[in-house]
């Protein structure tokens, strides 16, 4: 395992050197390096429990770490296919390539970290290296907000890590965290600090502000990594703080709601809030990437709720949703990136009819959103189904309602880019664009195939998750052939897929039997007999859900709150500056006297 880190470390240097000579070469090298990483981590699947040390960093292979690392590597690997085509848009291509690999090293290190210090070091490495990548996109502000929100998480983790190390006297994760079984008060503090990091990184309401900014304006090739990959670091922290950290024991005495301790329930409510908020905001967006970013906020809520449940179904659902969302979201972002590469924009109202030029990209996007919306037979369905089953089994009705809202609301927002970007009239200025480059198409098809495979044969993954559940000592999800069984329901996705295919086949036959249709252009549509000559005007891509949006357009947004907070801090700084740092010697002397008097009076008492 150390070898993987050394290899990736060397390859990031190599990719820097190569990129200095020829940026594209270095970018292609990132594909090879991440593939090598993927394969070598895959080969570690049987060596669970092995520990290794590298300098003062300690690593251990765990099933859950392996699972997370595989997800991350998949996303990095597929997104790397896009890197070579964006080199000319970046002003620091060499830095991009090497930071790309550096953030990969950081994230994998996080998942394999054995001690808390290693955990934190890897965490920070991933954060700042990805922040430096984000700044190469459209917005510095976004990168900054990303860093600041992450820093809130980092600093709270650091606090938790150090306090844990101080109190427990050990830094080994499991040993240190299980210490709190006997110290619930300090445990609550550490839990709060730890989970805060998870919340900021998953982008849970109200810490979600960085997601739309960073995802929306990062270089197009890096948005999939941010959404599909780096967000999952937060999920890992959430996992640590509820599964490894004995959260249910620490809060064992607190008020319970349907068997869930109140603090954890409160966090789940935050997850539910981010589902609802993310959904509503995603519906409003005019930019495809920002829309997908808000969908990540919503999906982060599912993941958080699932992991916090720590039961047979929802926990498995949460862990599986990680993978499903990573794959689907990466595919969707990549598809949008491919479109942006050809058209130069991600604004939905400026696009339209891209399907006529990029049908494969369209298919990729379609399958991605089907998975994201949780519609069978794609992967997203299984995980959402598990979460629903878990929530309704426990009777957590508020959370279940939010989950349902996010699920159905997702039809609305995922359909929006489908319709506005891909369907409808093609603007004449995009008449000559071509399908995405075969290299990009390959990456997208890999993810699409994965989405489909996960949907049809979810048990491939659920087996691993069952293993994790057994390690944690909770009731594992039961897999039986192609069927997935839970306490209150079962599903066999292969059968569902077959029946769906059967239905599709029936209708296809019916369709073929009937007379063939005449092809007409998209400008030949019913317009109340009015003549329209401009395709852009006929295409409906702006304010798609206007009546619905009107219902909540006046709702306060969170970002202004942060802005106001930042402004208040600045004002405080300004006050300090003008009050204590006045360029006037009189005042400085006055202050000396004031301090002296205060001390003397205080001391005299």
């Amino acid at each position, binding site marked *: 395992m150390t070898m993987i880190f050394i290899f990736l470390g060397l390859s990031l240097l190599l990719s820097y050197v190569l990129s200095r000579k020829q940026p594209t070469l270095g970018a292609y090298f990132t594909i090879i390096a991440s593939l090598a990483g993927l394969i070598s981590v895959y080969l570690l699947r049987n060596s669970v429990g092995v520990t290794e040390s590298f300098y003062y960093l300690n690593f251990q292979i765990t099933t859950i770490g392996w699972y997370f690392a595989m997800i991350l590597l998949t996303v990095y690997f597929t997104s790397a296919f896009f890197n070579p085509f964006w080199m000319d848009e970046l002003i620091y291509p060499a830095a991009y390539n090497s930071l790309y690999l550096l953030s990969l090293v950081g994230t994998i290190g996080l998942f394999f970290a054995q001690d808390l210090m290693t955990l934190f070091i890897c965490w920070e490495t991933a954060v700042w290296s990805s922040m430096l990548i984000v700044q190469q996109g459209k917005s510095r502000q976004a990168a900054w907000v990303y860093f600041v929100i992450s820093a809130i998480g980092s600093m709270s983790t650091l606090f938790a890590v150090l306090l844990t190390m101080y109190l427990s006297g050990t830094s080994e994760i499991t040993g240190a965290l299980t210490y709190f079984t006997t110290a619930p008060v300090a445990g609550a503090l550490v839990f709060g600090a730890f989970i805060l990091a998870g919340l900021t990184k998953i982008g849970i309401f109200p810490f979600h502000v960085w997601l739309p900014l960073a995802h929306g304006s990062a270089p197009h090739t890096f948005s999939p990594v941010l959404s599909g990959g780096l967000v999952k670091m937060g999920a890992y922290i959430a996992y640590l703080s509820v599964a490894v950290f004995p959260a249910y024991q620490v809060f064992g005495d607190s008020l319970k709601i349907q068997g869930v301790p109140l603090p954890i329930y409160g966090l789940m409510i935050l997850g539910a809030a981010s589902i609802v908020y993310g959904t509503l905001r995603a519906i409003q967006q005019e930019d495809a990437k920002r829309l997908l970013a808000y969908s990540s906020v919503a999906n982060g809520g599912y993941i958080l709720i699932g992991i916090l449940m720590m039961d047979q179904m929802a926990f498995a659902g949460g862990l599986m949703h990680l993978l499903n969302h990573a794959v689907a979201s990466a595919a969707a972002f990549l598809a949008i990136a491919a479109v942006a590469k050809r058209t130069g924009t991600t604004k939905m109202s400026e696009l339209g009819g891209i399907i006529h030029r990029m049908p494969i990209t369209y298919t990729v996007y379609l399958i991605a959103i089907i998975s994201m919306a949780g519609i069978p037979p794609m992967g997203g369905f299984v995980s959402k189904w598990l979460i629903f089953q878990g929530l309704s089994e426990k009777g957590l009705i508020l959370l279940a309602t939010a989950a349902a809202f996010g699920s159905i609301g997702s039809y609305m927002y995922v359909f929006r880019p489908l319709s506005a970007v891909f369907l409808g009239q093609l603007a004449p200025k995009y008449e000559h664009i071509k399908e995405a480059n075969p290299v990009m198409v390959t990456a997208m098809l890999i993810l699409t195939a994965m989405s489909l495979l996960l949907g049809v044969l979810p048990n491939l993954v659920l087996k691993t998750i069952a293993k994790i559940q057994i390690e944690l000592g909770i009731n594992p999800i039961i897999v039986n052939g192609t069927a997935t069984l839970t306490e209150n329901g079962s599903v066999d996705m292969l059968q569902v897929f077959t029946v769906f295919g059967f239905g599709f086949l029936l209708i296809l036959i019916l369709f073929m039997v009937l007379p063939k249709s005449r092809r007409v252009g998209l400008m*030949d549509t*019913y317009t109340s*007999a*009015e*003549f*329209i*000559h*401009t395709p852009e*005007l006929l295409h409906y891509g702006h304010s798609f859900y206007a009546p619905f949006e009107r219902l909540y357009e006046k709702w306060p947004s969170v970002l202004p709150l942060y802005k106001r907070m930042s402004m208040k801090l600045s004002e405080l700084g300004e006050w300090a500056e003008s009050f204590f740092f006045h360029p006037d010697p009189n005042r400085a002397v006055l202050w000396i006297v004031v301090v002296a008097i205060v001390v003397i009076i205080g001391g005299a008492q």
Partner: protein
Amino acid sequence: MHEVQKNDRSLWEVVGDYFRANSIWMKWYCTGCGAIEMPPTMTSRFDMEQLGMGPMATPRQADVLLITGYLSTKTLRRVIYSYEQMQDPKYVVGFGSCTLNGGIYYDSYATINQLDKYLPVDLYIAGCMPRPEAIMNSFGELIEMIKKGEAKGWKHYKENHEWYKANQMDSLGEVIIHDEFHE
């Protein structure tokens, strides 16, 4: 003008004509005052739904284009556009005497006097304006025509496309498009 061809339908067409005769969906092109006679025809006294007839929202869905009144040169273009958007087999019904001969404004520069020069009218309903009784009666006629396969205006239009186009161009003249809303 070509002669309407002899009636030799395949079995498929015969069955199809049966369905089409019993399910007449109309697109009303309400250009003039005649449209006011349609609501009584629809509602409880005459109830045209008992014959399977009904109004439809778009020409794509409709079988019959019902032109209820005056056509000006401006609306004629729209009518032709709508007609061409309809799916075969499709039928045109001219409603009121204005579609027949221009009605009382026959001598206006903007009035279209004889609809069948521009579109293949299968059936005219005379009157100014025709009462619901007349409408029901004439639709009964149309149903019979469709059943027998005699309503072939749409085929006629295809076969004599140049002739119709020439008439249309003649009447409309050249259209110069300035922008989306001005021509």
